[in-house]
């Protein structure tokens, strides 16, 4: 255990002094996400565009709609507890709401095409139920206000629910004594149009992991071999497995760190939503790290020296990035490339899986191809690395 800890530390200090590795695994991806984030989130307006469908022909529908539409204009005095906890307390938080009335089908279509952020439907039985007074049958019928929203809008959902509920209760209290007749029901829309940044983030995650394997795995190991450090370690009772575990453990830590940084920037700065489970995301990231570590070990096994490993990594890196759809969807490629080359690129499977998990929570069983492809890469590359790896320079 002590040997493992000391070796881990040794690897860490070597990694931290390796500017190329640091740059390509952490600085470069962070720069990417920030630049792309800034470029592509400008087109996303700050306001929340709400479609309003009034199916109720009675007075309550119009009354409710009026109240909602008045929200952005009000100078709402906020409860002091809330005011003290926010910095821009002088601003009405509801001023970002923009309402647009219309037909249900048209507005839902707009929502599906990302021209709206949410749609509120005031049901046709609204006035009838609320104005029925005490003549209601038991159990009392309910009027269901619909909120159609993308489940990925994780900040908008509680916001909208928080805004709507008091308004509904207020109107309810004005027209009837029966409590809780109005209910709010959420409907998920799935056909969300991806923002560019939503599409990019998983790709950049995959890229950063690939670069960990390509640029921070092979070269340092070759340096240890060429410098005779591996041979010197071989003259001690240290087991090779311990050495390997320390080497891999450090890189898993780096992978964890880089993905955490990238995800944090994406979600906090650019509001990228992660729809799928964190566990699934972590699982794919782990798998992807193993794939590219295995490729790194393979490169370390076959490359003659550090320079040729770096050159090889550069040669592999760029086509992988271009052909993997990390930065743009891969369409309009020549048939030959699309049919034979694309399926060979491991980055595709990783980026694709990450994108699915983050964007629409695709369950694992529908990503079997990705899983198998990545596992195959791990097995093949590990086998080749084991077959060709040398612990010292040949004589």
């Amino acid at each position, binding site marked *: 255990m002590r040997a493992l800890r000391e*070796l881990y530390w040794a690897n860490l200090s070597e990694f931290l002094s390796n500017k190329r590795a640091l740059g390509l695994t952490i600085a470069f991806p962070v720069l990417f996400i920030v630049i792309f984030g800034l470029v592509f989130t400008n087109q996303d307006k700050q306001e929340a565009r709400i479609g309003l469908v009034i199916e109720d022909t009675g007075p309550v529908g119009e009354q409710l709609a009026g109240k909602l539409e008045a929200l952005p204009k009000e100078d709402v005095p906020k409860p002091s507890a809330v005011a003290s906890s926010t910095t821009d307390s002088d601003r009405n938080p509801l001023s970002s709401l923009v309402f647009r009335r219309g037909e249900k089908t048209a507005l839902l279509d707009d929502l599906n095409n990302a021209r709206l952020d949410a749609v509120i439907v005031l049901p046709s039985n609204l006035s009838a139920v609320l104005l029925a007074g005490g003549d209601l049958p038991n159990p009392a019928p309910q009027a269901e206000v619909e909120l159609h929203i993308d489940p990925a809008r994780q900040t908008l959902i509680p916001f909208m629910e928080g805004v709507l509920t008091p308004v509904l209760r207020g109107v309810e209290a004005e027209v009837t004594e029966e409590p809780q007749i109005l209910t709010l029901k959420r409907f998920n829309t799935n056909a969300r149009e991806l923002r560019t940044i939503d599409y990019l983030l998983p790709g950049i995650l995959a890229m950063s992991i690939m670069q960990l394997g390509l640029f921070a795995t092979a070269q340092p190991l070759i340096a240890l071999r060429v410098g005779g450090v591996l041979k010197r370690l071989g003259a001690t009772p240290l087991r090779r497995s311990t050495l390997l575990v320390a080497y891999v453990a450090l890189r898993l830590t780096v992978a964890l760190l880089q993905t955490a940084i990238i995800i944090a920037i994406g979600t906090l700065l650019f509001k990228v939503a992660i729809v799928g489970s964190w566990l699934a995301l972590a699982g794919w990231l782990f798998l992807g790290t193993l794939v590219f570590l295995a490729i790194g070990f393979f490169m370390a096994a076959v490359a003659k020296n550090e320079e040729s490993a770096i050159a090889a990594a550069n040669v592999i890196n760029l086509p992988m990035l271009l052909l993997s759809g990390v930065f743009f969807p891969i369409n309009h490629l020549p048939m030959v490339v699309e049919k034979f080359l694309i399926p060979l690129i491991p980055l595709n499977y990783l980026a694709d899986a990450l994108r699915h998990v983050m964007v629409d929570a695709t369950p694992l069983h529908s990503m079997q191809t990705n899983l198998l492809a990545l596992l195959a890469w791990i097995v093949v590359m590990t086998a080749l690395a084991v077959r060709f790896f040398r612990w010292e320079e040949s004589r």
Partner: protein
Amino acid sequence: MNKPAIEVADLVKIYGELRAVDGISFAVDPGQVFGLLGPNGAGKSTTVEMIEGLRKPDGGSITLLGVDVVRQPQRVKELIGVQLQSTAFFKQLSARRLLRLFGSFFKKSLPPDQLIAWVNLEEKADAPSAALSGGQRQRLAIAIALVNDPQVVFLDEPTTGLDPQARRSLWDVIRRLRAEGKTVLLTTHYLEEAEQLCDRLVIIDHGRIIASGTADGLIHEHFERASVEFFNEPKLTHERLASLPGADKVEEANGRMTLYSGDVAHTTRALLSLADELGVAPRGLSVHSATLEDVFLKLTGKHLRE
């Protein structure tokens, strides 16, 4: 007599067509500094690395402190200290850190500070190892080799590439190893180093031992002759010199005469008497006895460093 610390018998290592080590046998007594001498590519390092358990021999047996190295290389590694030819360590780590790292590989290890003091590296104890000079790096390599307080220490060409001052300082370290009772197996292609440090030595060429013994013993065994040199003096002619007692050969080159003799004391006395009679003084007179270099030259027909 003690059981040998290292005993090697009929050691063979074959690389493809090349018999890199071709039937080497020797024994090293405990507490000795034992030298493996030979030109580059003679098979010294291969031999040493087989004894260290780093390479598997293709034939022969190795016993180290009673352990069969061929069958139990892992057990041997616990017992020995190793300094390999031209080892770079983790470049960013300091001497202190490296000693902790290597110490963690062994069941027992000495404190880094003690080892650093032992090789006089206190000033550079916390500098990254990449910033050390060649001599300091070799001293660090020796400190690391001592981290498990081994009985047997292997030093593979420790002074190669060092300037004379650094070399001498490293010799002191090796002498202190001997004083502490360590058994040292030293390979070198510096004959002076072997003469200075080694209790016993073997000369290896083409994977075979071509001579063994002490440095003095080898010189005496192969050279009874010594040579007398002086600047050319016309009256001291070739014929007169050749007739001096003991002189068996006279050479003239670069303005100097060289007189080879099997009895250098007699020859020198006769030479000086002759010069007196002729009323001349042989300028630049010097007497040379043979060195290991001469032994090597005689045995292999080539110089050690070529």
